[in-house]
């Protein structure tokens, strides 16, 4: 993943109101690290997760953040989430689609994967991010038109490109998310909205422990380190104060 990142740590653009960021799957692992990282950098942050108690715990830890209960895999939850994001932040500049489903747990060969397990992985990892991005596209494009910039970051995995046995449901859904991101980035360039798809690498998270219980945590990356790089990549995709007058797309980096 690292080759597509700007390795220099960047501040966030100086904006009034401050950068407004929405993060799904924000109570654990990489999502929680991203909530903390953007909050540390002065952004207004709304974060989404299914578990109300965990949400409240994080909200207490990080005053000023906005906790939203919702399940990205449920169509009926998407617009209520979008309403709360745009209502609590007054709009949105950055959306991070981070919530993920592994598919069958323990991981299973594709031939042993139930259709419903594949559907759940697609609903969480592909259709949910598509729906939420689309519901928030009006707000994101409004930010872009105002010169604030707008970024959708879809969290993918090397399983999107490598055919790892037993990672079929997850890998296929992330491959689709990667390709959706590439196409959407091309289509939305003229609206000034960037769509990034980035792989944070293997991290010491709950999700990883569920997938590979025998992996040694010491061999894995800290989610805080990945969150810093992802926040840098988002900052690099946003126009800063000096770049406000530059036409959208002129400072485009590569999308992995």
């Amino acid at each position, binding site marked *: 993943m690292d080759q597509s990142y700007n390795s220099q740590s960047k501040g966030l653009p100086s904006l009034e109101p401050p950068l407004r960021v929405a993060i799904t799957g924000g109570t654990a692992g990489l999502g929680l690290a991203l909530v903390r990282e953007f909050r540390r950098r002065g952004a207004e942050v709304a974060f989404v997760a299914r578990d109300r108690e965990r949400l409240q715990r994080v909200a207490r830890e990080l005053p000023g953040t906005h906790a939203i209960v919702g399940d990205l895999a449920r169509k009926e939850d998407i617009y209520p989430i979008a309403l709360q994001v745009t209502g609590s932040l*007054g709009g949105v500049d950055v959306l991070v689609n981070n919530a993920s489903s592994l598919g069958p747990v323990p991981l299973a060969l594709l031939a042993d994967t139930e259709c419903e397990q594949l559907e759940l992985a*697609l609903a969480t990892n592909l259709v949910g991010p598509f729906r939420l991005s689309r519901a928030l596209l*009006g707000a994101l494009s409004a930010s872009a038109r105002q010169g604030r910039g707008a970024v959708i970051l879809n969290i993918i995995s090397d399983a999107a490109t490598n055919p790892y046995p037993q990672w079929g449901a997850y890998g296929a859904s992330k491959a689709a998310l990667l390709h959706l991101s590439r196409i959407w980035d091309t289509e939305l360039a003229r609206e000034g909205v960037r769509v990034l798809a980035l792989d944070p690498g293997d991290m010491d998270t709950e999700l990883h422990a569920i997938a590979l219980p025998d992996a040694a945590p010491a061999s894995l990356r800290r989610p805080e380190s990945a969150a810093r790089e992802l926040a840098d990549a988002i900052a690099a995709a946003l126009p800063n104060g000096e770049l406000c007058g530059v036409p959208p797309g002129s400072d485009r980096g590569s999308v992995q």
Partner: protein
Amino acid sequence: MIPARRAIQRSPEARLLAVDTAGQINQILRADFVTLLRSGDLVIANDAATLPASLRGSHVATGGAIEVRLAGWPSATFDDPRCFDAIVFGAGDYRQRTEDRPSPPVLQPGDRLALGPLSARIEALLGHPRFVTLSFDGTPDAIWADLASHGKPIQYAHVPVPLKLWDVWTPIAGAPVAFEPPSAGFALDWRSLALMRARGIRFATLTHAAGISSTGDPELDNLLPLDEPFSIPAMTAAAINAARAHRGRVIAIGTTVVRALEAAGAHGGKVRCGNGVATGRIGAGTKLRIVDAILTGTHEPGTSHHALLRAFLDETRLSRIDAELAANHTRVRRFPAH
């Protein structure tokens, strides 16, 4: 997975009557409206998303069933969900015409309302027994969550299927500040924005808190449109003033855009960026200072929206359009057309 059903408000068969300054009327597909525009034109749309403004519950003191419809923002800003102006209806639901709904219990300042998970207090009566300012208990985040879970978009007796939030957000919907959809925005899609750009037509947005369009009560309807706060981004104001300086036409997508721009340009004909409040009605006697043309839904004669069109057309031409719409059965009553 649940298959998506076609959105009823974005029918590809929707048609448009194009009326030029000479009064010539042509009928085209709504999707082709970009063909009416020319290089140098500036199209302005309202990017407000629509609140789930209909809340069912009860009047605590009497236990009487009520429906509260949030109708307006009491102040010039629209970022605090703790306080709204609202119309209160009695028992029943949207399947009855609002005209036929029973009255709610007698309302007094200080009365408590239980609206699902939301708890509200009536702060004031606004010159009518059913028109109130109310405040919600709780933090803004908790109120947003409860509005999201309990609120429904305002429904219409003539729309058979209950409207969900995704039915009432236009493709460009951003901040949730409107009480009914700025429905002319349903004519836009991302393809039409790309077509505009390719033809040298500029596009910009403002945010206008479209208020409730009708109440079923003639006395209350006389108060409409309510004062509506709006916000005009700096880049939008600059684009409008540049277009006007270069004799480009300013084309409003919907009546709310006309209200906002004419309010913002009322002094000196230049549009200032920032927040404002649109007050009063636009009609036959109004001299338009900013807007040259409008794309709008159809409006019932007698409504404030229909009256606004008189600022663009004289009575004879407007009557001819009404007759043409009636003859072609093209009056669509799916949404209140802002």
